[in-house]
């Protein structure tokens, strides 16, 4: 099984007629994802290589029955697009947009929680989600993922997610679902959301968790793992050598004072029984070892 999405998930792309939206939307469809529509205000009635375009999310949902949306719009329009998706009846929103102001994210997140409690937002500033062989929403290259499980992946970083997929696939180890939760300070979906979904998924036998400096989501995840997780977890945390007070590429990857260091995260995870590795390759090898021993 997969988490959050599967082979029946119908997806619309908000921003399908833009350069990025078109590129990734079509790639997702080519992968086999049910991309059933696009949304661009003012372009309703047109199509992108056979994918019908609608003026609003509501119209797209009414016409196609989509439940998921892929938001690929510039930062200044992203918050409105996310809220429009929720208002239009979408229950799973993937936003890859990088560069959304933190205050907009905070307001959008809280409005979703308060007004649309059944809606899940993945991202912003994330690579998306892929259930190999079933559904790919986002910018991950489908060819580096391998269907069939048994590993679930959750990561704050895009390229490190690809790296993890690659290392496992090369060893013949498949993935149930790979979720990129993104590198912004207010992620819609966090580690615990994904870990609990993987814990509940019978086909996922082990989880790879890739974190980085900044915030305390990894520490919170460690607490959750200690209490609830029975499946093995392998982890790698990027940024051991990052200087404090600097944003390391991702808006959320910053050590503030003594808070958010890689060391504190690794200590917490180790204490929770997680296999903490020093680099992505070592994490891949550890996972191979664990899967072979299952």
């Amino acid at each position, binding site marked *: 099984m997969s988490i959050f999405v599967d082979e029946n998930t119908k997806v619309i792309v908000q921003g399908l007629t833009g350069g990025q939206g078109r590129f990734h939307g079509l790639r997702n469809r080519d992968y086999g994802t049910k991309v059933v529509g696009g949304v661009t205000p003012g372009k309703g009635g047109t199509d992108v290589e056979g994918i019908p375009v609608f003026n609003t999310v509501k119209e797209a949902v009414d016409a196609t029955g989509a439940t998921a949306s892929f938001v690929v719009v510039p930062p200044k329009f992203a918050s409105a697009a996310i809220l429009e998706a929720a208002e239009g009846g979408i229950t799973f929103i993937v936003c890859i947009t990088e560069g959304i*102001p933190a*205050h907009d994210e905070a307001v959008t997140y*809280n409005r979703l929680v308060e007004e649309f409690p059944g809606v899940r937002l993945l991202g912003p500033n994330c690579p998306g989600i892929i259930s190999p062989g079933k559904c790919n929403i986002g910018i991950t290259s489908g060819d580096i993922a391998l269907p069939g499980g048994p590993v679930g992946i959750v990561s704050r970083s895009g390229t490190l997610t690809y790296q993890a997929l690659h290392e496992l696939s090369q060893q013949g180890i498949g993935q149930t679902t790979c979720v990129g939760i993104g590198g912004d300070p207010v992620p819609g979906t966090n580690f615990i959301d994904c870990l609990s979904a993987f814990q509940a998924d019978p086909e996922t036998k082990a989880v790879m968790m890739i974190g*980085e400096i900044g915030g305390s989501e990894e520490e919170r995840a460690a607490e959750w793992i200690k209490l609830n997780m029975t499946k093995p977890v392998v982890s790698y945390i*990027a940024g051991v050598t990052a200087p404090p007070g600097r944003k*390391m590429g991702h*808006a959320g990857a910053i050590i503030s004072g003594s808070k958010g260091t890689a060391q504190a995260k690794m200590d917490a995870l180790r204490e929770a029984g997680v296999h903490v590795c020093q*680099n992505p390759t070592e994490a891949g090898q550890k996972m191979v070892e664990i899967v072979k021993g299952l």
Partner: protein
Amino acid sequence: MDLFEYQGKQYFSKFGIAVSPGGVADTVEEALAVAERVGYPVVVKAQVKVGGRGKAGGVKLADNADEVRLHAGNILGLDIKGHVVRRLWIELSSDIQKEYYASFTLDRPNKTHLGMLSAEGGVEIEEVAVNNPDAIAMLSIDPVRGLDLATARRWVAEANLDDIAREQAAEILVKLYTCYTEGDCDLAEINPLILTTDNNVHALDAKVTLDENASYRHPEWEEFRWSETEDPREQMAKERGLNYIGLDGTVGIIANGAGLAMSTLDVVNQVGGTAANFLDIGGGANADVMAAALEVINADPKVKSIFVNIFGGITRVDEVAKGVLEALKRVDISSPIVLRLDGTNAVEGRAILAPHLSASLITEPTMLDAARRAVSLAN
């Protein structure tokens, strides 16, 4: 973007938060002119983005023109923890009765805003948090609802601010919250927020960090970009639109993706090397980006080898390889380059580089191998 104190005070003023009258000065003469305008005594304050400037001799009281001349002359050019003072803020000295602390920042775990208010200001809030946590009144604020005056009034009472200061402080807190949200700050902090002997409340210091992601809606931030960074490498990278952070090591780093770039620094460190920089070239790196990246790294005299770590996803490795060759035609690189190329079209990418490989252009099959090679070349 961190603001200097004087910029933070200018920003506060836009939102109606009272600060001491003052002005900036880059020379002793300018300092004198400001002092004559605001009246004596004045405080001469070094403008550096680092804490502990008082202890370092960067903040001095001056009662007259001679003292302004003396202190301004001494402080300009002073080195405070590696930051050389190039600008001063001169302001009218305040008679302090009490020092408080107030700040707003994002509460990441709760995805709300966090207000911190304390009747014990003037010292590092981290120290108060450790030694006397009860002295800090924390307020969790729903970003949708915001902070109103009624809540602020309850908050100043809870924090035990002096009665006489409460109403003024509550009004300042609402303004500071507006500055924090509408002004798109990651951090808006007043430490100390003072009660003067004549019972007025105003901000004596300003610590503001702006959210760069919001710069598209704040054209007024341009004026704050004065010497945003003191590192010439970072200045050069910024002009070329690169996501670069200067470090002290000898291995220059180029990677695609923030996570991979961070991870590259870690791996270089693990195998006994030190990174000269963080540099994320992002997705779809072409020859222009690669040339710009190599140019910036090449300008760093400490760099002894360059590690290019690419995992192709959307970025195609064959395009990166072409970019590297094109960049080498344009820029004369003085250090050997070690490449690790994996992911989308990696085979094609390696084939493109194959005829050009030499002692100064090397490929390695894995990230660890490449790190080891780059470090051995640098050491």
